[in-house]
């Protein structure tokens, strides 16, 4: 009951203080909003990039091992079984020469070329999908060493491309984390300064509270709540702006760079909302916590 009364007091004080120092409060809200927009854009770009990478990942995590003409069927099945038994391999599909030709002819992009070919120049192949992209190289090597592989065109593996994608993906991840860390530090400093100003404005009240026997956290509580409030309001504004801008931005980007398979993902908005609101509240709490520990002592 007493805790509830203290909470009510803290909420009231925080609300009053927010309005009493409106200029400082709004400056803090705007600064945190800008930071959270940057953080949100970072999350959205990260998500878009991971969508693109996932698309590529799916494509490049599958390689075709071409079978030399005249390889006995039993040898192919044996190698297929060996691959299936490999824990790194998700699936193996044997495509016969005939099936390969049918697939080639069925592709509308090959319509003109298909009419011109004579006989069946295509290889039979084993389409191997691996679980982890990093294992593609090892499976490729396994295929190339297999006796039944077509020595002129062993596999369709593009090692360089996969490695570059993996490298780019990890660098972008690192850059995202670094950017987030900088944003966290900047927002914590902004909230701390807001709290310092609020503490200055309420120094008389704090002095009286101290003299009448208020506990340290009774005095500090309203400032921490004010910090959380600042973070939440900023997060709500940043979220609204990002939600409004997300779809048009993706469409614009998509029309400019058609070859990058970027798409609008409405399901990501709920996780963005959760991340921004929790992030905003935590930033506010952290900044004000550090602020009150520094500036409010009884």
């Amino acid at each position: 009951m007493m805790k509830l009364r203290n909470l009510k007091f803290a909420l009231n004080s925080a609300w009053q203080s927010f309005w009493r120092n409106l200029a400082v409060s709004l400056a803090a809200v705007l600064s945190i909003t800008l930071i959270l927009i940057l953080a949100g854009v970072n999350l959205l770009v990260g998500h878009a990039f991971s969508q693109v990478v996932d698309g590529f990942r799916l494509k490049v995590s599958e390689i075709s091992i071409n079978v030399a003409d005249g390889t006995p069927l039993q040898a192919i099945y044996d190698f297929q079984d060996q691959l299936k038994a490999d824990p790194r391999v998700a699936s193996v599909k044997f495509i016969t020469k005939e099936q390969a030709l049918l697939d080639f002819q069925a592709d509308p992009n090959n319509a003109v070329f298909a009419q011109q070919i004579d006989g069946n120049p295509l290889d039979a192949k084993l389409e191997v999908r691996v679980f982890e992209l990093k294992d593609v190289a090892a499976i490729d090597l396994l295929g190339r060493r297999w006796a039944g592989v077509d020595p002129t065109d062993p596999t369709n593996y593009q090692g360089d491309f996969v490695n570059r994608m993996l490298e780019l993906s990890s660098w972008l991840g690192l850059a995202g984390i670094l950017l987030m860390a900088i944003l966290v530090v900047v927002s914590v400093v902004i909230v701390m300064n807001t709290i310092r100003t609020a503490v200055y404005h309420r120094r008389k009240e704090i002095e009286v509270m101290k003299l009448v026997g208020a506990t340290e956290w009774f005095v500090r509580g309203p400032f921490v709540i004010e910090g959380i409030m600042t973070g939440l309001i900023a997060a709500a504004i940043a979220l609204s702006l990002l939600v409004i801008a997300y779809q048009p931005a993706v469409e614009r980007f998509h029309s400019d760079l058609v070859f990058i398979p970027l798409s609008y993902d409405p399901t990501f908005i709920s996780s963005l909302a959760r991340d921004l609101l929790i992030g905003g509240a935590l930033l506010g709490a952290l900044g004000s916590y550090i602020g009150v520990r520094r500036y409010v002592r009884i």
Partner: protein
Amino acid sequence: MVLTPDFDSRPIISFQHVWKTYPTGTEALRDINLVVPEGDFLFLVGPSGAGKSTLVRLLIREEKPTKGKIFVEGIELGRMKRRQLPHYRRKVGLVFQDFKLLPNLTIYENVAFALRVLGEPDDLVQSRVADALDTVGLSGKELTYPANLSGGEQQRVAIARALVHAPRFIIADEPTGNLDPATAWEIMQLFLRINARGATVVMATHNREIVDLLRRRVVAIDAGQIARDDRSGRYHDEVTKPQIRAQ
């Protein structure tokens, strides 16, 4: 009615060889030994800069002694942990020269504030605030703001706030410093009534007329040391310390 303090009873406040030197090197108090029994009414007198305010700050544990020990109700203030401080300050009623009222709160809210920070329920706050305002003679002014009160009335509000949680002792630092003689006398009457109800009062003051008129215990501080401790004293010690003058 005047209660005679029992000087043989357990002291409510005790200073034992207390020294206070500030980081700047200023020696504010030197070897202070002082015992205040329960129910005492003690005037701290002396010129500005003599160490009265430092003594008050030590008593409310805004400062710690550099050397020596201060006991209040048997608890050593220097060893008190920070989290225990609020509980200690709730036992003390504090009154200052500048009233320390919150201008954006009404009189009722200012007095209630001392109970609100303790998380007391509304009904208890209401009855205690009504009693305290009645004691200081401000019933009916609950909804007034401090700016609309005279200096004397503002000090009464501050006293009501100091009394509202029924403290065992009151520390007053120049409570009449900003008041005219007639109002100062009214405020003193209030302190006497509070003392008569059993609360111990320690008051730092420059008000010579009142000290001389009341003839209560007078502890004179000069250059950080206790120059004189008279059970029924005057502001100046005519024989040994005529140089102590109110500033």
